[in-house]
C-alpha cells in the first residue's frame, strides 16, 4: 500500500467528483489536441502543395482566390487567360518551369484538371495502375477519386460542367480512364488529370460545334518556378503591370491565409486553455474540501510513521494521477475526434486532418496538464504538510 495507491484509493472513494474533474480536464486537452492536429496538418498540407511553385499566374482578381483555386483547388478560379501566355512565359529567361492548368469541369465533386505531365511530375506522382494520359479525353485519377468513384483503367466517365456536383453533363465527350495514381498526400489525390486539349475538346462540343477555329484557346492558370531568385523581384511586377493578368506568390498569400486562420485557431486554443484552468481550479477546490475531511487521516498517517514529505507526496500524487489521466484521456479524445472529423467531413480530409499521427507539441500539452495538477495541489499539499498531528488527533 504505497502513497500512490492510497492517493488512488481516495480518488476512487470520491469517484464521481474525480470522473467529472477528469472529464473537464480531458475536454480542455482534447480541444487543444484537435487544434494542434488541425493546425499541423493544415500547415503541412499547404506547404507541401505549394512547394516548388514560386508564382501563380491567372486572371485578375483576388490573389488569395487565385492561389486557393490554382494550387489547392479549394476555391473557384478568378477567370481565364490566353493559352499562348504559357508559351510566352516558358520562354522568359527567368523562368525554369511553367505548368498550365485548365479548370472548369468535375467528376463527383472532384476537379478535372487539364494540364501536362509536368504537373504530375512536380508532385512526384507515382502510378498505381495504368499509364499517364497521352491524347485527348484520356484521364488519370488521383487516389481519393479512384476510391470514391470506384473507377479504374478501362472505365469511362462523363464530366459535369462546373466545379460542384450536379452541373450539366458533357455526355457528348466521355473520358476514358487510363491510369490511377498512388496516394501522395498532396492535392493530386483529389484531382482528375487530363490533357489541356481534353478540356477544350469537351467545351467545343458543349458550345458551338463547327466554329472551332474561331474560339481563342484559353487556360485557367499557370504555375511558375523561377530560374533565379532575382525573378521574385521582377517577374510579378512585370506580369501585374504589363499584362491583363495577375501574378500571386504562394509564400506571401499563404502567410496571409495562415494569419487569418491563425487568429481563429488562437481563439479556440484560448478556450481550451480556459477549460484546463477550470479543471485545475476544480482539483484545487476538491483537494481543499477533501483536506478538511481528511485532517484526521493525515494525522493518523503521521502517527503510523509517515513523514511530512510523505503526506505532501500523498496530496500531490492524487492531483498528479488525476491530471495525468486527464491528459492521456484528453490526447486520446483529441485524436479520436480528429479521425472522426476527417471521416465525416471531406473538407477536413482535404486539409490532411488525421488522428493517426502525433505532434511533438502534445508532449508540452501533457506537461501543461500535469503542471496545472501540481499547481492546484500545491496549497492543499502544503497545508497537509503542516498538519499538527497531536492537536488534530485529540480535536474533532
Amino acid at each position, binding site marked *: 500500500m504505497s502513497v500512490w495507491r492510497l492517493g488512488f484509493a481516495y480518488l476512487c472513494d470520491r469517484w464521481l467528483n474525480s470522473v467529472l474533474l477528469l472529464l473537464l480536464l480531458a475536454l480542455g486537452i482534447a480541444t487543444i489536441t484537435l487544434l494542434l492536429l488541425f493546425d499541423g496538418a493544415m500547415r503541412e498540407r499547404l506547404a507541401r502543395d505549394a512547394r516548388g511553385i514560386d508564382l501563380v499566374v491567372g486572371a485578375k482578381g483576388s490573389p488569395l482566390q487565385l492561389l486557393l483555386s490554382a494550387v489547392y483547388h479549394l476555391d473557384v478560379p478568378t477567370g481565364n487567360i490566353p493559352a499562348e501566355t504559357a508559351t510566352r512565359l516558358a520562354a522568359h529567361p527567368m523562368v525554369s518551369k511553367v505548368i498550365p492548368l485548365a479548370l472548369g469541369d468535375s467528376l463527383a465533386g472532384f476537379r478535372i484538371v487539364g494540364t501536362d505531365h509536368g504537373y504530375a511530375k512536380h508532385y512526384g506522382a507515382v502510378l498505381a495502375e495504368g499509364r499517364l494520359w497521352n491524347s485527348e479525353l484520356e484521364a488519370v485519377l488521383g487516389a481519393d477519386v479512384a476510391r470514391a468513384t470506384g473507377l479504374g483503367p478501362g472505365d469511362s466517365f462523363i464530366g459535369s460542367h462546373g466545379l460542384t456536383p450536379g452541373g450539366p453533363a458533357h455526355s457528348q465527350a466521355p473520358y476514358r480512364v487510363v491510369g490511377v495514381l498512388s496516394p501522395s498526400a498532396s492535392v493530386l489525390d483529389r484531382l482528375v488529370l487530363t490533357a489541356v486539349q481534353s478540356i477544350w475538346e469537351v467545351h467545343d462540343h458543349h458550345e458551338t460545334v463547327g466554329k472551332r477555329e474561331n474560339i481563342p484557346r484559353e487556360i485557367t492558370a499557370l504555375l511558375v518556378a523561377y530560374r533565379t531568385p532575382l525573378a521574385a523581384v521582377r517577374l510579378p511586377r512585370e506580369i501585374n503591370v504589363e499584362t491583363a493578368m495577375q501574378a500571386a506568390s504562394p509564400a506571401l498569400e499563404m502567410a496571409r491565409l495562415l494569419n487569418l486562420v491563425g487568429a481563429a485557431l488562437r481563439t479556440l486554443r484560448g478556450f481550451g486553455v480556459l477549460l484546463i484552468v477550470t479543471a485545475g481550479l476544480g482539483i484545487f477546490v476538491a483537494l481543499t474540501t477533501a483536506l478538511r475531511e481528511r485532517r*484526521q*487521516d493525515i494525522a493518523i498517517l503521521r*502517527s503510523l510513521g*509517515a513523514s*511530512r514529505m510523505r503526506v505532501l507526496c500523498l496530496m500531490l500524487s492524487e492531483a498528479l494521477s488525476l491530471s495525468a489521466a486527464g491528459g492521456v484521456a484528453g490526447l486520446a479524445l483529441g485524436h479520436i475526434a480528429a479521425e472522426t472529423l476527417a471521416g465525416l467531413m471531406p473538407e477536413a480530409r482535404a486539409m490532411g486532418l488525421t488522428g493517426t499521427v502525433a505532434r511533438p507539441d502534445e508532449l508540452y500539452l501533457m506537461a501543461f496538464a500535469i503542471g496545472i495538477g501540481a499547481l492546484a495541489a500545491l496549497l492543499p499539499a502544503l497545508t497537509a504538510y503542516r498538519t499538527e498531528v497531536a492537536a488534530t488527533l485529540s480535536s474533532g
Partner: protein
Amino acid sequence: MPDSPIIALRDLRFEIGGRTILSLAAWQLPRGKHALVLGPSGVGKTTLLHLLAALLRPTSGALAVAGADLCTLKPAACDRWRGAKVGIVFQRLHLISAVSVLDNLRLARSLAGRSTDEGHLWSLLAGLGLSDVAHRRPRELSFGEAQRVAIARAAANRPELLLADEPTAALDDANTERVADMLAAQAETSGASLVVATHDKRLIRRFEERLELTAVAS
C-alpha cells in the same frame, strides 16, 4: 539496550503557550512490563501518550523511549522511529475509511518502511477474528470490529511499545475484559510493553505498574 527501561522520564514538562499541561518528576517502565496511566479527564493522559509516541515534543526535562532520546531526535527521525517502534490505539480509532481493513494494515507496514508481510497481517487478523472482514471498508464494521482493526493496525509492525488511549471507555464489563485481554495478548505476541491511558477503574487490577496523574497546580 535490551536491559534499559522501555520508558524513562525525568522532570518532564509540557507547556502550550506558557501554560503547563503536564509535569512529571520521574517514571520508569521496565521492558516487557505493562502500565496503566490513570487520572480524571483533562489531566493530561492523552498528552502523555502523545509525548511517549513523539507526536509532541517535551518543553523541558528528559524523555527516553525504546532507546531513543525524544528530546533531541530530529522530526523526520521521530517519524521513522515512531513507525518502527510504537503502535497506537486511539480512542476514536481513526481508521482510514477510503481503503479496506487489510489495506489499513498494509498501509501501517508501508508507512513504517517495512515489507507488507501478508502472512503476518493475516495471522493478526485471524487472531482478532477479523479474517471475514479483511476486504470490507471500515465504515461497514461494527464498533467492536473497528476497535479490533485499530488494535491489529497498532500491532502490525511488531512494536516495542503499544499505546492505547481510553480503549474501554464505551464498553460494558464483558467487552472491557475482552479488549484488555486482546491488548495484552498483542503486546505479548510482539514482546511489547503496553501502556494504557484510562480513567476506567475496572482495569486497575490487571496492571501491576501504575502511573497516577494529578492536575497540575498552576
